[in-house]
Every structure is written in C-alpha cells, then in structure tokens.
C-alpha cells in the first residue's frame, strides 16, 4: 500500500519489480490514519482472526538505508518468517497496545488539510497550485514532525525528498528526539 498521490510512480515501480502481492494506492493516507503509520517503509501484522498482532513499526525491505536508519532489516524479516510458519508472535496483546502510536488532533487535522490539497492539486493539474500549497502548508504547521506529512508533501510541491529541505527536516526531527514509531525493531547502535 503506497502512501502516494502520484499513481504513475507507484505503477511503474510495481510493474518493473513484478510485484505479486496486491499493490494499493492510498493518495489520501487513509491507511496511515487507520493504522498509525507515521513514516515509510513500515509494517503491521494482522492474523486470521482479523486482529492486529504487531503494531506499526519501521520495516525496511533491505539494508540500503541502514547507515542512516540504524535498522537491521533482517530482524523484522526473521520475526515475520517465524510468525508465518509457526504462528509464534514476538509480542503479546499488551505489548502491541503499548507500542502503538496513537494520533493526536493536530495530526488528524493535518491529514484533512492534506486531503483537500490533493483534491485541489488534481483539479488544477496544469494551473495555479497556490490553493493546494496553502493546505499543504497548514498540514505541515500542524504536524511538523510526521514524515508522511512533511516528507510526503515534498514531491507534491516539487521538492526533492532527498534534498536540502529533507535534511533540514531530519535535523528538526532529530532535535525533537526522533518521535515516531515506538517499537524500534532491528534498531542497532552505531
């Protein structure tokens, strides 16, 4: 499930990689809202009883960004294999609840501003994008440390998500104590 307002980018990558799982496009970040995703890439586990058995947490597909994230991707992969094969979980329900990231009102309202911005952007694809930018700015002011808002907005306003703006954001986020997912699966000391 891609948290992307840009369908083309998602479709191109998923097609090129020949992904066999269902690939959904969540341009309004509905699933981020429902499950508490504050960054990508991240995972949730849901069992046969339709219950959440592992909360939202960082889940890199590989170690490509390990020097930056300090996350050993294999730790989550191994836990996942064990659960799929034997049903053995690494967290009980109490721990799942403890490590959930609950939203606050600022984040919830930021998501609504972002949704309006996405609608306005689609409406004015060739023209004036000032209205859309207005709502993106409101969203960022409300949730300045949420990656799905701050970094997720960058491609919508033509900002490089690996450029100066991004590193400025990472600086702010680090200074604020790196808020986000609580669980920290696979986190390693530098």
């Amino acid at each position, binding site marked *: 499930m891609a948290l992307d307002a840009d369908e083309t980018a998602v479709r191109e990558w998923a097609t090129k990689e020949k992904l066999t799982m269902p690939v959904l496009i969540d341009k309004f970040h509905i699933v981020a809202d429902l499950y508490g995703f504050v960054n990508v890439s991240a995972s949730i586990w849901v069992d046969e009883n339709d219950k959440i058995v592992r909360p939202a947490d960082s889940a890199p*597909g590989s170690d490509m960004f390990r020097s930056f994230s300090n996350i050993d991707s294999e730790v989550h992969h191994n836990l996942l294999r064990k659960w799929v094969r034997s049903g053995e979980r690494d967290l009980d329900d109490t721990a799942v609840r403890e490590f959930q990231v609950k939203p606050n009102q600022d984040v919830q*309202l930021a998501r609504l501003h972002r949704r309006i911005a996405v609608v306005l952007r689609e409406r004015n694809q060739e023209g004036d994008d000032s209205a859309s930018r207005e709502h993106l700015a409101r969203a960022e002011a409300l949730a300045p440390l949420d990656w799905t808002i701050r970094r997720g907005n960058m491609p919508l306003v033509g900002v490089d998500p690996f450029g100066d703006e991004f590193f400025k954001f990472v600086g702010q986020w680090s200074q604020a104590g790196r808020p986000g997912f609580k669980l920290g699966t696979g986190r390693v000391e530098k």
Partner: protein
Amino acid sequence: MSLGLIVNHAGEIAHAEVGSEFGQFAIPLNDFEIITGWKLKPEGLCIDQICVAVRDPKSLTNQTEIDIVEFARITNQNIVVDHVRKIAALGEHADTRSEAMTTLDAPDFTLPDIHGKQVSFSDFNRRKRLLLAWSSW
C-alpha cells in the same frame, strides 16, 4: 447554491450542492446520508445502532439541508472546510481513533490497486496479512 466537494473519512469523494443561505457548509439531506453513512432520525443523528441526541435541531438542519460542520461538532468528528473552493474533508477525532486502536481489531479499507480495481482489506479476511506502507518519496 454551488457545487461543493466532500471527502469522507474513508477517502470517498462526493459532490453536492452547497447551500449559501443556511449553515456553514450545508448539503442536501439525501446526499448527507450517502456521504457520511449517518441518518437524521427523530431520536437524533444515527449510525449502526448508535444515536446522538441533537439539542438544537434548527442549527443542524432546515429540513432539506444539513450543515455538516454542525454535524461534525455534534458527533465529535473532525472537519476541515475550504469555504473559498467549497471543499470539506471529514475525519475521525484523535480520541475515537485511539480508542479503536486499543481494540486491536484490524479496520477495513478500500483502495484502488495499480490497475484501478477497488480492493478491500477484508477481501483477505481470515488470513495472515502483512500490511506494508511504502512510497515513491
């Protein structure tokens, strides 16, 4: 009257005539029920088996339209309105979502896949699922 747009909590988009005389963002009653899933009944605003009392019906509805800003306030939902562009987005209050999360029930959602087909999370009920959030950014 002018055509407005509403994004509901599930990300569904609907168009409705927005009244200029009544309320802050008033839409026809029929559209309201389709967009929000709530119904206006004599006992109040109702969804599933739950009804919320309406203390001051005159500020909520003029019988043909319903003000969705007032609706959101009464039912403790979030709403952001762009009055200039006539767009409203409805969403869940942080407390409602936080409480729902503690049940550990996996909430359902429906989104388009990369071929444009609508897929629901519940299409895969009774199976183990890994839900991955990723992006191009």
